[in-house]
């Protein structure tokens, strides 16, 4: 390969890196100050692009000059920044006191809403933006042509980094941002107007995302799928760099840009997973990212977010549980479709319950739980389709597959904590997804495999419903028992204080690892049951949206409650199933429902149930 080609390829990598950094810097600043994992950051990026393809052509009509182009880009960024302020004022401000994970759920609701609002306003067809006047051409670098606009982008990244540095070190606002990133409680204690600081931070973060989107319009058209493709990449950059570290994000973006630019030469199909492999390696070696710092241990004792002291079911709880079981068993008396939905709710309830076994009971927040659900489905499905085995052994294989994968990934995962742990679970889930997606000969690739049907005795909807009910309720009762047993208590103890657990002789890592494996096995069983209820398996079962659905279910149900996830799964699935046939804009309604539930039941449905009862008694 000629070196001038390598140079140009490196420049391409730098241009992508620059754009990625601008977006990721906003995400990392928002996280640093507010500790919110802002899923809506990708939506701000998308809105930036849509604003720009609207504003910039209009300005160029007035005067076709580079100035007008950049005025338009900046105006788009500011407009998106104001939308960030709106989200802070209308939504986030109301929920700063609820567990941090709820804010994540609320921002996920915003993602759904923005997706549909964008297609309502701008239509479903992608909108190409104008090229930048004065930067339309290519420049010759030796005898390779390279777009002038990309040279410009290469310069923008460091310029933004420099401006952010000045902001952080030369202004009071910036100093507060840095102080809050390092020690949030200190800033609160110093009497800083936290609300103003957060509003300002959201403005800055959203504006940076908007700027990133607006700067893209000469290269890519604005489309309604931009949000999810960028958000994951921005998370990866932020985590590799170290959450809250702007220079770290810059370094990570450069690394990923080059990795992509040269990666496609060597492994043209690997782009799907390269960034996640890098993230997994970085986190295994440096648990807080390249330039991140361990989260300062809280000076005061804070009650953990999750299951506190699990009590045996009270009278009302027993009645409710009995009613739920009767309802499950009586479902086949209603129409066939209700049975189908009921079967699915049972399966999702088990998956959600197993996730909350980690999140609520163990303080291990997994963003990649669908991996074990999906691998369970594949474990079962492959045995049926490829090995020709019947359903029964396949359903035994499902939890084994899910558990084995969880044991493998969990070995590394339990070494980390907090948001980094969550991101490592996400990286492993994406790696598993990429393997399933890419290994076409065995897994059927993205088409998946069909023909995963139950044995004849369980073929009818009703029989399969009862089979599912027995297995899922059995597994849920077992996991509930484990939560009350010494093993579950040990996981809670390790969550409450790893130092204390260590000092009383508990091997924290090993117990968390076993817990992770157990939850993976339960999710795998759910995945196997899901495969047979659908007749097919495909990579979406392992995808990020599936993991996010599971998280939404446990948060809606209430992570501090043992049985909450079951209610959450039922509510989430019912709401989705109710809205989907009504309108094309069901995502909007689902998003609004999620936000409404977060605002009305900030401790989840089960939390609301418990406090009502407490209030009544």
């Amino acid at each position, binding site marked *: 390969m000629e070196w001038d080609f390598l140079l140009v390829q490196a420049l391409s990598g730098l241009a992508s890196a620059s754009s990625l950094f601008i977006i990721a810097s906003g995400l990392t600043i928002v996280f640093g100050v507010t500790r919110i994992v802002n899923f809506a950051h990708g939506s701000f990026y998308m809105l930036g692009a849509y604003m720009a393809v609207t504003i910039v052509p209009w300005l160029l009509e007035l005067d076709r000059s580079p100035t007008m182009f950049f005025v338009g880009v900046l105006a788009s960024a500011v407009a998106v920044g104001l939308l960030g302020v709106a989200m802070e004022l209308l939504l986030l401000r109301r929920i700063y006191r609820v567990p941090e994970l709820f804010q994540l759920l609320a921002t996920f609701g915003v993602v759904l809403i923005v997706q549909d609002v964008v297609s309502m306003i701008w239509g479903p067809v992608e909108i190409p933006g104008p090229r930048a006047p004065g930067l339309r051409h290519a420049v010759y670098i030796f005898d390779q042509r390279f777009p002038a606009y990309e040279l410009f982008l290469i310069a923008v990244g460091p310029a933004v980094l420099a401006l952010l540095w000045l902001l952080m070190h030369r202004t009071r606002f910036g100093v507060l941002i840095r102080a809050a990133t390092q020690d949030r409680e200190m800033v609160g204690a110093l009497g800083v107007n936290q609300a103003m600081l957060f509003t300002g931070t959201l403005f800055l973060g959203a504006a940076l995302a908007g700027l990133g989107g607006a700067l893209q319009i000469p290269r890519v058209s604005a489309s309604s799928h931009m949000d999810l493709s960028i958000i994951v990449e921005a998370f990866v950059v932020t985590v590799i760099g170290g959450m809250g570290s702007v220079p770290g994000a810059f370094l990570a973006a450069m690394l990923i840009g080059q990795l992509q630019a040269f990666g496609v030469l060597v492994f043209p199909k690997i782009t799907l997973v390269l960034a996640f492999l890098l993230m997994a390696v970085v986190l295994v070696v440096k648990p807080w990212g390249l330039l991140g710092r361990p989260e300062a241990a809280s000076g005061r004792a804070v009650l953990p977010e999750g299951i506190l002291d699990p009590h045996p079911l009270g009278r009302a709880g027993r009645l409710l549980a009995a009613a739920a079981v009767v309802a499950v068993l009586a479902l086949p008396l209603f129409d066939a479709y209700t049975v189908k939905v009921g079967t699915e709710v049972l399966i999702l309830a088990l998956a959600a319950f197993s996730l909350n076994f980690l999140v609520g009971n163990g303080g291990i927040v997994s963003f990649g739980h669908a991996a074990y659900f999906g691998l369970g489905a594949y474990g079962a499905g492959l045995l049926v389709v490829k090995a020709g085995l019947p359903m029964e052994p396949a359903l035994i294989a499902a939890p084994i597959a899910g558990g084995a994968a969880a044991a493998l990934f969990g070995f590394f995962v339990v070494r980390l904590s907090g948001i980094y742990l969550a991101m490592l679970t996400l990286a492993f889930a994406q790696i598993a997804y990429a393997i399933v997606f890419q290994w*076409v000969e065995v897994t059927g690739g*993205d088409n*998946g495999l069909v023909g995963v049907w139950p044995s004849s005795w369980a073929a009818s909807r009703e029989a399969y419903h009862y089979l599912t009910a027995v297995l899922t309720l059995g597994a849920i009762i077992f996991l509930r028992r484990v939560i009350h047993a010494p093993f579950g208590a040990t996981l809670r103890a390790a969550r409450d204080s790893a130092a204390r657990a260590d000092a009383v002789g508990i091997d924290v890592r090993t117990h968390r690892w076993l817990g992770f494996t157990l939850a993976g096995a339960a999710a795998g069983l759910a995945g196997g049951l899901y495969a047979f209820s*659908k007749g097919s398996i495909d990579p979406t079962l392992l995808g990020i949206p599936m993991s996010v659905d599971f998280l939404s279910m446990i948060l809606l149900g209430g992570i501090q409650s043992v049985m909450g996830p079951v209610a959450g799964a039922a509510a989430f699935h019912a709401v989705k199933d109710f809205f989907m046939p009504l309108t094309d804009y069901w995502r909007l309604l689902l998003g609004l429902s999620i936000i409404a539930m977060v605002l009305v039941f900030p401790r989840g449905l089960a939390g609301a149930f418990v406090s009502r009862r407490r209030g009544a008694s």
Partner: protein
Amino acid sequence: MTRFTLSRRALGGAALVALARPGVAQGAPIRIGELNSYARMAAFAVPYRNAMQLAQDQVNAAGGVMGGRHIEFVFRDDGSTPGDAVRVAEELLTRENVAFLAGTYLSNVGLAVSDFANQRKRLFLATEPLTDAITMAQGNRYTFRVRPGTYMQTRMLVESLRGKTAKRWAIVAPNYDYGQSAAANFKRLLPEAIPGAEIVAEQFPALGRVDAGATVGALSQARPDGIFNVLFGPDLTAFVREGNTRGLFERRTVASLLTGEPEYMIPLGEETPEGWIVTGYPVEQIEAPPAHKAFIEAYRGRFNDMPRLGSLLGYVTVQIVANMLNQARSAETEAMVDALADLRTDTVVGPVTMRGLDHQSTLGAWVGETTLRGRAGAMKNPRFADGADYMFSEAEVRAARRSA
């Protein structure tokens, strides 16, 4: 099973059960469950649904089917995942009592619904999924496909490369089933059209996430004479812009799948490259048959927009459905399946036959060259490639479907 059926009846479900066997209730509309990615793939699916509604109303206005019964499409979003789609399919069959299923856009969704239909022994008319598997290795008795699949489209395109001199070819395709199988088909078919041709580079960017700079750089480094492109949508726009600026397409033959479809051509706008050989739908240039003109007029009159490829597909689908019901004289699954095999329908783009061998329709596509007219892209010298000439050979079908 019997017990449950009885209990449903005891609950007053008798009427529903009767409805589930259409033909009994004379005069009631025949309901068809249409599930598609209306939310996520709205650019394609909404014009598709528009045309279906148009065609449905025209069929009903003209007296309906089977001697006076109306047809009624029940539209549902398929959630764009196989899991959601199978649930929606179940809802359509059990709650909406549709006579059969139609639709789906994504290949994995199409395959999942196809296998579900096979399991339930209900007819499924897969309108849009492009994967060859749905009519070949995973084909089944109850699934039929309307749109020309990946193999047919690739073959139409490669056919047009006959006589070209480009020997060194590079492939760029999105990294999923459609991209991978288009690339595989191209590799297989290319030597027949251009003896001695070889593949010198392959790029498979992730769908919706093309890193255009790096991809264009990698392709030009291979110094190909020709480029086979399978990218579409936002990936295509980004790729074309980057390639134009860097001169990737200069003095090179470019063959590009689907790029001539209005869905993908319109966003290219003034960036539309000159002289790419593409498959597509040059909607305004189609002269024959006259029915097509009438279709355009009716569509424009009702929706104030030009039809897209999705619209054509939706309209043709309804024409085939109406014809099938008239031939079957029943909305019983087995009768419809039997009627559909080798059914010939006169559509707005000419006769289309649903080949009984592999359940693939002979609907064709147009092949032409891209050109810029004013500030919009267009197809130059379009020629209609009749799908019948580009289907899998009978021997291949038999081999593939036997193993299924």
